[in-house]
């Protein structure tokens, strides 16, 4: 999509129907994954962004092991200071080190992003497979529900649900874990629709295909048919949708924290850091800038990687 998508190999899209090109004849046979990798590499921004993304993930995972400044070391003598050698990204109003807090908060933000994505993919595959397999009225009903979820006012509902359930859940599993489970589940439950549609579409397009017919004729069980033949074919588009889901979940979690309604105040997620920083913009802009940049870079990288993956795994959708 962005810039580097090649002009399609057959010229027909360019207005010259009927010209045959046979690129396969010239290239040695390669596996679909190699082919996908070749297409992904062509998307330079996606390659750069996967580098950035991997760096960020490694940084938040192992960074705290090397950068051993405590996230809650209060020191009023250095409060609200800009970047310096002691505090590379500066300090907040309690003199806490922002780099340490951003590294720690990144773990939470990324963990929420990936966990919510898994919930979304799980629900999406489940609903999509059910609809695709059952067809008829079940399918119509499930698709109605899918469309309904697509038109839900997500943020208000998210806020409402967290407002109603937070206390009950934190009472059971503790404030940090309770909020984590709640946020991950709900964000996941608001993001499965795209995956469900993709999986269902795959069912409908493959149901009549010869190899599925053949597998059915050979007596493959329904579950095996789905697991071995249909889902692998839906994998490419689902991976693309899942990537975008990670970004959506990170934004959703950050939004909640930014509104002061996400994780408890002592857990410095990126959104929470912004929430704390927003009243000190005039004298400590670095406080808001760095966590904001962290969110932006992560989301941008994921979006570009998703775009590259779309080129690589879903070549039919030329966008």
């Amino acid at each position, binding site marked *: 999509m*962005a810039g580097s998508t090649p002009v399609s190999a057959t010229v027909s899209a360019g207005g010259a129907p009927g010209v045959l090109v046979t690129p396969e004849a010239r290239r040695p046979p390669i596996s679909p994954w190699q082919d996908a990798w070749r297409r992904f590499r062509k998307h330079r921004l996606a390659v750069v962004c996967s580098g950035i993304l991997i760096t960020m993930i490694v940084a938040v995972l192992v960074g705290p092991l090397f950068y051993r400044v405590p996230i809650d070391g209060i020191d009023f003598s250095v409060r609200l200071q800009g970047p310096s050698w002691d505090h590379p990204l500066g300090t907040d109003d309690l003199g806490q080190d922002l780099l340490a807090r951003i590294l720690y908060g990144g773990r939470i933000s990324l963990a929420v992003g990936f966990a919510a994505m898994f919930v979304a993919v799980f629900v999406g595959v489940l609903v999509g497979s059910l609809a695709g397999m059952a067809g008829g009225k079940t399918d119509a009903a499930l698709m109605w529900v899918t469309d309904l979820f697509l038109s839900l*006012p997500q*943020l208000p509902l998210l806020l409402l649900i967290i407002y109603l359930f937070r*206390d009950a859940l934190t009472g059971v599993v503790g404030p940090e874990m309770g909020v984590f489970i709640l946020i991950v589940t709900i964000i996941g439950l608001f993001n499965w629709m795209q995956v469900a549609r993709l999986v269902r579409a795959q069912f409908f397009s493959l149901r009549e295909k010869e190899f599925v017919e053949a597998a059915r004729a050979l007596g493959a069980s329904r579950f095996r048919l789905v697991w071995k033949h249909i889902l692998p074919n839906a994998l490419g588009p689902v991976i693309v949708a899942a990537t975008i889901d990670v970004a959506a979940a990170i934004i959703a979690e950050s*939004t909640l924290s930014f509104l002061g309604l996400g994780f408890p105040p002592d857990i410095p997620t990126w959104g929470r850091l912004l929430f704390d920083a*927003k009243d000190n913009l005039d004298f400590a802009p670095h406080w808001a800038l760095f966590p904001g940049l962290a969110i932006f870079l992560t989301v*941008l990288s994921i*979006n570009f990687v998703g775009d590259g993956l779309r080129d690589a795994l879903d070549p039919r959708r030329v*966008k």
Partner: protein
Amino acid sequence: MIAIPSLLGISVILFTVLALAPGDPFEELATNPAIPPEVRLQLRASLGMDDPIYIRYFRWLFAMLQGEWGFSFVSRINVDQLILQRLPTTLIVIGSSQILALAIALPVGVLAATRPYSIFDQVVNTLAFVGFSLPTFFTGLLFIMFFSIWLGWLPFVYNTNITATGWQWWWEHIRQSIMPVLVLGLFQGAAWTRFVRSAVLDVIRLDHVTTARAKGLPESRVTIRHVVRNALIPVVTLVALQMPIVFGGAIVTEQIFRVPGIGSLLITAILANDTPVIMAVTFVFACLVIFFNLLADIIYGWLDPRISYR
């Protein structure tokens, strides 16, 4: 009329969330010394807390639909009044930001798509990615840093009590609306630019466009009458699907700039445990989303003659 089933569906989800919620949402009243106990009992009775669930649902739904949303625990006025006071502000901010988004997305998306893979197209694409990867809450803060603190051009807190009159009054209102509208509009504009671009790219290679060229029409007429006009059909659907995100962005933006709309009302209500207000605002947002979906359906049918004859 798909709006009515959707409304029912959303109301069922809302009600389920409420019914599943642990504890009594009206517990707050018991501990709130400002609310006399008889009011609490009256409220409980009016909601029929002990009736079978479906009866409670229908009663709740009819109450919601008739605008009987109770009254705010905090500001002690009827919730419907509270919302009616705030709704116009939200609608004006959202409306102008959407117009801005459209004014950016349509020309830019069309220009990019008619020059695919050119420098312009690549710049637009990259900017669009940046635009919708920047969360509204961060752009809001960046704008405040830049326009209010650094340049000192715009006020960063929305003022409802502007004393000026005449042109001055208008000018002040426009000035304080610039940033919220820009934040929302640029974000949506970025997303829509991509929609427009991809829709135009899809249409531009269709046979009927070649037919239009073969008629000897000027390229501008081919683009506007035979490409953009057709590309608007899928764009309307995609835009309708974005409405929940638009309202989410509105909540965040109102909160950042303290715009007195229903979004900031929702956040205030949650922080103050003001359940009736929270419920009502969520319900209003649901209605707004459905309304815009309905509007999109009508526009869709109007744009695509194949629909009405289906």
